[in-house]
Each structure stands twice: as C-alpha cells, then as structure tokens.
C-alpha cells in the first residue's frame, strides 16, 4: 500500500536512545511537541518520509529494558511491554490458549521482516484505521498503561483510540504496556480481508468468554470506519451460541448494521459485503473452539 510520495529521505532530527523510562520521560519533557517516540519505527519512519510528521527529536524506546518484557501480572492479566516486537509475541509459549485470538491477528500482520521490528504498542498508538490490532485488543477488553509527569494511568483501548491517528496520550506521556485481562475459557477468531501483506479492507475480532449468564461476546470491526466499530447487533445473534443458523444471521446483520465508509481503498458497499464474509468465516472457525 503506497501513499504515493516521492520522498525517500527523512527530515532532520536528533536521535536519542534512552536506557531507562525516566530518561525517556525526561527527553519528552525537555523537547515537548518536538519529539516523537519510536518503537519499531515502521509507522514513524513512513510518516516522516511523507513529511506527515517532522519531529526534531526521535526518542527510540527499543533500548529501554523496562519496556522489553511480556509478563503475567497475578490477578490482572498479561502485560506486553511497549518495546516487545510482534515477532517476540509469536514466539512459542508467549501467547497462551486464552490469548490465541491475538496470536492469530499478529501472525497475519504485514510480513516476518516487518514483524521483527514492529511493536504491538506502536501498532496501537498509530491508530491508523486499517491496522489490525485495535479491534482484537478492544474485543479482549485490553487497556493501555501510561506513564507521565503526573504518574501512571490505565485507559481501555476502546477509549484510548479517539479518532484516526488520534490517541488519548499527552506529548509528555509514554504508553508502557498493553494489559490483557485474564479471562477463563476465552476463545475467539480474527479475520481480515486484504490483498497479500497489504493493509486490511475490513477486519473483525470476535471474542467470547465465560459460561451461561456470565457469558460475554464481543464483535469489533476494523478498517471499515475511521475507528474500530463494535457491533452489539452482531453480538446479540451469537450470544446464545454459534450455530449454522446464527452464523448466517450474524453475517447478514453485520452487513446491514456495521457502518462502513467509502474511501480510496474500497467503497462502503464493497466493505459491507466483506463484513458479511469475514463475520461468517470468523464465526465458522470459532465452532468447536
């Protein structure tokens, strides 16, 4: 997917490679509004080539040891540090059965060479409408942990993404991790429609957890609108179970109710068709999970 720019160089900036979070926060405070954080750099470098961003300071988080871990926080969930790459997430044993839906989505992002550099937090913070991890993380009730001068705060991913390329993050703050809450028996499926390793034209994450009355189902669509779209209409169709009938109905309802936009990548009508197809495919794969 090309933005069609003639630029092959980057604007002038000073590169910083802090070793601690404190040092990184200090750099942000020192260069407020002139600094940009870099995780894997995939998005930032592309944006800088386009001159959509021209920071005079780039603060690379790869060397910050505190941000490099994936760990289980007892009673809370799985914490994925901001400098953890997508390849690291895919390593054996990093994402267990209950987080398999995230693994499914991450394994299909771009290609292995990009995944070796790209980070989950970076993917999320870009908040580009067609990136794949926001719908999955929202469907999993994930939140982001943020640190700044005022201390720490935790924000659900669903409200962290405010608009296209707009997140609830102050220029002096850093997202330190994504927290995925524990959920017994969580199952899910991620499906997207795309050509090869390009950006999605439509994606969906469907996640179910719990049993009986406590059963929760979430269906969140990506790449169809400027921000991820949750569809309770689709959720209603599958709350009582996933069967041939409910899958067909959910696909229809998705196509009717999920709001899709027209843009240079696809028409709204085409997206509505895709939404039906991916909903049906995702639910089909959830049978027996």
């Amino acid at each position: 997917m090309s933005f069609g720019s003639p630029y092959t160089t980057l604007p002038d900036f000073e590169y910083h490679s802090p070793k601690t979070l404190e040092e990184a926060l200090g750099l942000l405070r020192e260069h407020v509004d002139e600094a940009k954080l870099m995780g894997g750099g995939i998005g930032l470098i592309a944006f800088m080539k386009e001159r959509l961003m021209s920071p005079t300071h780039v603060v690379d988080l790869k060397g910050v040891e505190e941000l490099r871990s994936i760990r289980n926080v007892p009673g809370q969930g799985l914490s994925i540090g901001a400098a953890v790459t997508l390849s690291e997430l895919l390593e054996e044993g990093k994402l267990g059965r209950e987080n398999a839906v995230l693994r499914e989505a991450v394994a299909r992002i771009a290609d292995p060479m990009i995944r070796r550099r790209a980070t989950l937090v970076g993917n999320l913070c870009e908040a580009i409408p067609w990136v794949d991890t926001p719908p999955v993380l929202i469907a999993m009730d994930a939140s982001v942990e943020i640190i700044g001068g005022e201390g720490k705060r935790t924000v659900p991913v669903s409200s962290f993404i405010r608009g296209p390329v707009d997140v609830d993050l102050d220029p002096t703050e850093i997202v330190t991790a994504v927290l995925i809450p524990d959920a017994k028996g969580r199952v899910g499926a991620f499906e997207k429609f795309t050509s090869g390793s390009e950006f999605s034209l439509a994606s969906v994450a469907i996640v179910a957890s719990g049993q009986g009355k406590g059963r929760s189902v979430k269906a969140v669509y990506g790449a169809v609108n400027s921000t991820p779209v949750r569809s309770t209409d689709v959720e209603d169709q599958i709350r009582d179970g996933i069967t041939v009938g409910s899958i067909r109905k959910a696909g229809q309802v998705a196509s009717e109710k999920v709001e899709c936009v027209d843009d240079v990548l696809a028409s709204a009508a085409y997206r509505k068709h895709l939404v039906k197809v991916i909903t049906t495919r995702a639910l089909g794969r959830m049978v027996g999970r």
Partner: protein
Amino acid sequence: MREISVAVNGRTRRRTIKDNELLLDFLRDRLEVKSVKAACWRGECGLCTVKLDGGLVKSCLVLAVEADGKEVTTVEGISPGGELAPVQRAFVEHGAAQCGFCTPAWVLAAHELLRTNPKPTDADLTEAVAGLVCRCGTYNQIREAVAEVAGTKPRRKAEEGLAQA
C-alpha cells in the same frame, strides 16, 4: 552527525553519519554495498532486506544509527571467499533470477530460511518470503531452488492451477 561502527559481513566499518540516515542509504551510499537495492522505500518490496543482529529486516525502515555496534549481513556475507553458497548455486541452476534486481534479497532470505529451517515446507517458504516481491515472477523457480537445497519436492503453483482448470 555522529560516528557509528557497524560490522558489515564481518568487517568493521566506521563512518560519520547524520541521525536521520536510513540503514539502506548507509549501506549503499557510504559503504557502496550495492547488492542492497533501493526500490519502494516503504517496506513493501523487501529488496533492501539485510540481516541485522541475527534477523532479517527491511533496511529502508531502519535508521543507520540503530545499527551502531551491531552486525549486518548482506548477500555478500553468505559466500565468504567467493565460493557460492548452496542456495546461490541452486538459484543459478534453476534460473531463479530473470532481471536479477531482486535476486540478492531473495537469495539472502532463502539462505536464512534454510539455515534456521533446513527442511521448509511450501507454507514455511511462502511465509518467510511474504515480504519480498519479484516483478519478473520467478517464484516457481525460487521454490524449486529452495526445494533442491532442502531435498524436498516443490509444489508448482502454476501447474497446479492448470491441472485444476
């Protein structure tokens, strides 16, 4: 401006660079390693692929300064002393290059795949090279070349398609 030191194909190279320089430009323009191709500049074609610190990356999406103190391997690094690596020989024998522009990246990626996974399945190969493009379309020949080195049987997608038609 700052001085960086990068071990390229086993040889330490020191250069003064600008902070905003891409690893791709550093390799091509400062070190004259022209096997690393500049084509799309946006991480789509994969022709600027190099091995950085043990893994393949697209050098148009990496800052040169990030390679400071690290090891970079380009296709030249897989045939020290000028002797062709098995996968290079197989590329020649199977005609896995047409115009040749993308070949260094493909050879490097195929070599790396075979090093980490000596018997890759077709799916392994497809996944490993998902970020590479060959505009001449020598994909079948590349499959054959990799399969020969691995001692496995390649699946020819085009023939399969015809058989089904």
